[in-house]
């Protein structure tokens, strides 16, 4: 019998054992192939202006993805090898040379690699086509994606994964040469040496994380730290510091908490608490490592997803903030379809040039009566009654870091007059293009201000405004080129921002999904391997009179710790990262971020239920 056929038969007979491993390989390949296919897709690059952005985004993301896949594959490979240690030991005991065992495992890995590569590429092809449709829809285009098989993607995937398989095969070799026969007899009995809960390490970990959080939360435009590490260096520094801190924290704090719990006999000597704590301590080193990895992965996923979802969610809000009217332009009105029209007004406003000690700007002077009418039309519940000599400022672009707050000050005009700024609103009633910042004064003051140029502005409000792209184009075509410059349209702006943000959302949610699936799978693998090792322990418990309900309870408790600890840390990490993000873009993303966190936790919870069920099933098998 040749080695090759031995390897082949090995796989055939142990298919169930291999299933998880092959499944995780195929999973990695499907994900990667899908992603590169999208990257190389012709339909996508044929798309309009945003395609360049998408390409850059996709390239960057595929690096992240690759990095992640390497971690994931190394993880499942090491689990797989651990499971097979006994088999290797048996061969060795029977007198097969290590060299030969290594060669056999190498062949085996090659066969598995080949099978998963073919499977993964076929599945990935179909998945990429499906996702392409979704991507195009999210971006708001109507392009029909055709089924194209990308040779580039095929070459790319095959090349990368061949390298990876070689790498994991070598890892297998390493395991065999490090392996000692005695391991067969003492395997896993000993537990891991419990690391000392060092106060210094715990403090250092806390300090590192606190520093990371502080930096992320501080204002990047004024903070010394941000200036020192530069805008590009600081995020990297924060990420590094946080990862190190997380590892230290899991490593020492978990030991500290668990030993303290174990020592508190009035708690631990109650029911199965002792078992739960001891089991967690038993694998503390491995736990600390994988919990940190999971926490970091969760943080990455939540941050990426939250940020992108926040932007997508804000796309409409941002447009509406700047453009309260569906259409607006300077000059005469034009003919357009009167369907869905809520209002169509010609406003007479004045164009002001204002100098003050900070800058000079063009402002639009608006009559109080016009303001009140428009506010009512736009559904704003606000009526202004402004005193003589006073004004209300409408500045939709106000940002408290860069803009000057005029409230309570005098607003000087070119001709020496000045208005007292009573209040400032960040919500305008006129579109920022063409109106800019607006000064509202009462009607007498408006008439009295005579050295300002009078301008007519058309404001149009439509029902169902996001869908009025046709009307928007119709109007745009009829305007003079000068008017076109002053033209602003809600549907047009919305479409433009969707094109960019939609692609971002797609990439973000794709990566998020991949990370989530992989994070869940890592925990799942980890816990199930441990469950198999622990079967005997639970069988003993059953024999000494622990009923299945209590066993389920302790299993659920242990798994809950392993699931929730990294999730909580991940959520807190990402909350600070998103804080920095929302500062950077000046957006309020609390609501979408919370939605996304809830969604993430919910999916995570489903994984939890599955894991507990499988764990319990494995443990129950041990009883019979």
């Amino acid at each position, binding site marked *: 019998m040749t080695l090759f056929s031995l390897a082949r038969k090995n796989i055939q007979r142990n298919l169930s054992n291999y299933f998880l491993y092959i499944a995780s390989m195929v999973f990695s390949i499907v994900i990667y192939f899908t992603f590169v296919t999208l990257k190389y897709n012709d339909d996508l690059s044929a798309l309009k202006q945003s395609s360049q952005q998408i390409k850059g985004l996709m390239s960057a993301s595929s690096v992240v993805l690759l990095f992640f896949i390497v971690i994931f594959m190394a993880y499942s490979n090491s689990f797989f090898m651990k499971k097979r240690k006994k088999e290797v030991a048996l061969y060795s005991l029977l007198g097969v040379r290590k060299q030969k065992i290594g060669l056999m495992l190498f062949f085996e890995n090659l066969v598995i690699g080949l099978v998963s590569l073919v499977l993964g590429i076929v599945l990935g092809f179909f998945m990429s086509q499906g996702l392409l449709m979704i991507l195009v829809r999210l971006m708001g285009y109507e392009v029909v994606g055709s089924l194209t098989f990308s040779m580039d993607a095929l070459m790319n995937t095959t090349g990368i994964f061949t390298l990876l398989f070689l790498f994991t095969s070598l890892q297998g070799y390493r395991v065999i040469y490090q392996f000692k026969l005695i391991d067969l007899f*003492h395997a896993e*009995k*000993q*537990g891991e040496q419990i690391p000392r809960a060092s106060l210094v390490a715990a403090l250092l970990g806390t300090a590192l994380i606190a520093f990371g959080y502080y930096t992320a939360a501080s204002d990047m435009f004024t903070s010394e730290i941000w200036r020192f590490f530069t805008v590009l260096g600081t995020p990297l520094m924060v990420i590094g510091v946080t990862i190190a801190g997380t590892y230290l924290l899991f490593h020492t704090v978990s030991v500290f908490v668990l030993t303290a719990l174990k020592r508190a*006999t*009035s708690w*631990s*000597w*109650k*029911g*199965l*608490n*002792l*078992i739960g704590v*001891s*089991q967690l*301590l*038993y694998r503390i080193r491995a736990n600390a490592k994988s919990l940190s990895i999971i926490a970091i992965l969760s943080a990455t996923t939540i941050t990426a997803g939250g940020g992108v979802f926040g932007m997508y969610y804000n796309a409409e809000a941002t447009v509406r903030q700047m453009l309260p009217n569906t259409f607006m332009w300077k000059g005469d009105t034009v003919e357009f379809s009167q369907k869905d029209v809520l209002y169509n007004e010609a406003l007479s406003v004045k164009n002001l040039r204002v100098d003050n000690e900070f800058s000079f700007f063009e402002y639009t002077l608006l009559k109080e009566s016009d303001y009140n009418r428009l506010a009512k039309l736009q559904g704003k519940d606000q009526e202004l009654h402004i005193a003589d000599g006073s004004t209300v400022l409408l500045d939709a672009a106000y940002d408290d870091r860069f803009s000057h707050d005029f409230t309570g000050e005098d607003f000087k005009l070119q001709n020496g007059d000045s208005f007292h700024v009573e209040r400032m609103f960040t919500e305008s009633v006129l579109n920022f293009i063409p109106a800019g910042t607006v000064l509202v004064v009462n009607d007498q003051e408006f008439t009295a201000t005579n050295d300002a140029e009078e301008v007519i502005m058309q404001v149009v409000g439509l029902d169902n405004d996001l869908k009025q792209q046709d009307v928007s184009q119709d109007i745009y075509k009829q305007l003079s080129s000068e008017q076109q410059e002053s033209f602003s349209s809600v549907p047009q702006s919305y479409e433009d921002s969707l094109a960019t943000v939609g692609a971002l959302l797609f990439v973000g949610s794709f990566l998020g999904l991949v990370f989530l699936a992989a994070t869940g799978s890592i925990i799942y693998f980890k816990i199930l391997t441990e469950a198999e090792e622990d079967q*005997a*322990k639970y069988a*003993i*418990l*059953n*024999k*000494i*009179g*622990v*009923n*299945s*309900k*209590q066993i389920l309870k302790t299993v659920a408790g242990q798994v809950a710790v392993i699931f929730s600890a990294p999730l909580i840390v991940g959520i807190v990490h990402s909350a600070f990262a998103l804080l920095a993000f929302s500062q950077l873009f000046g957006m309020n993303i609390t609501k979408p971020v919370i939605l996304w966190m809830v969604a993430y936790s919910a999916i995570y919870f489903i994984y939890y239920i599955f894991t507990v069920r499988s764990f319990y099933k494995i443990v129950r098998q041990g009883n019979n």
Partner: protein
Amino acid sequence: MTPLLKVQNVGKTYGKGANTFTALSNISFEVGKGEFVGVMGPSGAGKSTLLNVLATIDTPTTGEIIIGDTNLARMKDAELADFRRDNLGFIFQDYNLLDSLTVRENIVLPLAIAKMPTKAINARVDRIAALFGISDLLDKYPYQISGGQKQRTASSRALVTEPKLIFADEPTGALDSKSATDLLESLSDLNQTQAATIMMVTHDAFAASFCQRILFIQDGRLSKEIHRGTLTRKQFFQEILQVLSSIGGGVNDVI
């Protein structure tokens, strides 16, 4: 004297249809309080099956098992677990200690499961550890102690709850003769001074000679029963050897 354990017509069949295998058939006997009973027989005779069935780890196909005034045949899985916790103690051939717990914690475990207050737990653990001579080992892990010490730990765990009935399945199977003698003497001592009821499965005539009464099983049936009476342990040992050679099969195990 009312019997503590009453076994009536117990049978156990594995498999279905034409492929059935009868492990136990029609076994009936009684064990009184304070007795030290041995169960012997050749390999495959059904000793361990009988013990598992009695210990509620396995369920009988037919017959009734009554411990105290509880009929085990009518109990559900969860009730059985609780019953084991409250009434039974086990000593296994392969110790079945939990590697992740120290010796002390292993002994504490059944009391913790029974929700006993910490103070009372400590007192009991110290007493039982002294009885088995493992007081110095309490804070070690199972992988740090020898086989004999492990078995004494396992015995302490079985006895710390002061169970009504103790089941031992080949407790000396993996021990050297010195450790085996120590353990058996401790059990015998416990039986005499505290009137603990012990039922021990063994194929080792030496171990069996510590019992007061021995039931022999052959092909799933009860074949013979002998009492120690006033015999010395050595005389009883000889008698056991004779019985074993007369029923056959067991001799190979002994030699």
